[in-house]
């Protein structure tokens, strides 16, 4: 196992090789690796910039090519530092290019229970995994414009529905300030930080403990939940459906009504 980080973390103990990359130089490091696997020329100055020695990189490339099945796992250190989704895109490209030599995959490390399921369900229903706007009546995807932190910090939303998350505890302060300014609705098994600054809180049954359903594993395998307890609280599914049905009784927000296909083509 090869670990790449900007500092020695607890995971170093479990790693065979640790490479300490200079903060903010992930994109450069990945781009150099992409060049090296294809024997393209790189300069000493470019390698020096990453904080990793050329010998260590040559060793890494040899290990990657010698592997029968390589897997790259990446986390928020890559996706939330300078370069953001460009860093993730570079790593995914490296994984794709490695398949010219051997089998290789890349997978994001997920923190919360069913966040993979959210990706899968949004992809299935809209074609996009997150950061979606329906404001033209059809789904559009643009992280940075429609992603929550950006929307909140700019103040682009005037009502927030929060389910299975506690942004009031984790988001940057300007985002939390906007959450407190607009009416917020929270569905959660606990009264959370977000609930305290919300207009409406509804207590729901915790998924997997007393609410049945499906959750996706990090590698996109769906798992049935087997709740051990009964809950006197309703499930997220039931409450969300009832809110949706209450909205459906109101006239459609689009003046000309929703677009529908008259005949099946």
């Amino acid at each position, binding site marked *: 196992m090869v670990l790449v980080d900007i500092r020695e973390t607890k995971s170093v103990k479990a790693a065979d090789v640790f490479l300490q990359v200079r903060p903010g130089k992930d994109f450069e490091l990945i781009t150099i690796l992409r060049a090296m696997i294809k024997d393209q020329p790189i300069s000493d100055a470019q390698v020096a910039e990453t904080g990793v020695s050329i010998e260590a990189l040559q060793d890494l490339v040899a290990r990657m090519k010698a592997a029968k099945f390589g897997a790259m796992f990446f986390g928020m250190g890559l996706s939330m530092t300078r370069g953001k989704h460009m860093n993730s895109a570079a790593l995914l490209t490296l994984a794709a290019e490695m398949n010219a030599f051997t089998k290789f995959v890349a997978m994001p490390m997920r923190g919360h*229970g069913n966040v993979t399921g959210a990706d899968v369900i*949004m992809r299935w229903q809209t074609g996009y995994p997150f950061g979606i706007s329906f404001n033209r009546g059809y789904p559009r995807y643009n992280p940075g414009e*429609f992603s*929550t932190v950006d929307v909140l910090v700019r103040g682009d939303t005037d*009502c927030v529905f929060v389910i299975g998350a506690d942004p009031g505890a984790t988001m940057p302060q300007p985002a939390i300030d906007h959450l407190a300014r607009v009416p917020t609705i929270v569905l959660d*098994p606990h009264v959370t930080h977000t609930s305290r600054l919300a207009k409406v809180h509804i207590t729901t049954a915790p*998924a997997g403990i007393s609410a049945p359903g499906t959750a996706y594993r990090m590698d996109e395998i769906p798992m049935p939940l087997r709740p051990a307890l009964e809950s006197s609280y*309703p499930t997220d599914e039931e409450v969300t459906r009832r809110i949706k049905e*209450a909205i459906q009784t109101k006239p459609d927000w689009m003046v000309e009504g929703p677009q529908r296909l008259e005949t099946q083509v």
Partner: protein
Amino acid sequence: MDLKVIDHATCTFCGCVCDDIQLHADDTRIHKAKGACVLGKAWFLNHTTERHYPAALIDGKEATVEEAIQVAADLLYEADMPLVYGMSNTTCEAQRECVAMADLLGGLLDSHTSL
């Protein structure tokens, strides 16, 4: 007292979603979570069926679920640009309802993934 045993229970605490947990539970709480890690054990054993929280809160005051649903629907409908956010610690079935609701509202839809 005999405990109900649930084989192949699924843990939704983190993204690993382990499905090889054996739970031993009575009517109010889970007493044992065999095969779960430290995080998973804490997740399963800390939940009970006791009602720690009111059914719903509107402006911090206790309310019924039906009232809260109506207020939520009104607020979301009246908003110019509502945002549906989160969907991590919930089921795929609830996520599907969230997508349908965001579509109906003509609003924004986003998850933890964008963080």
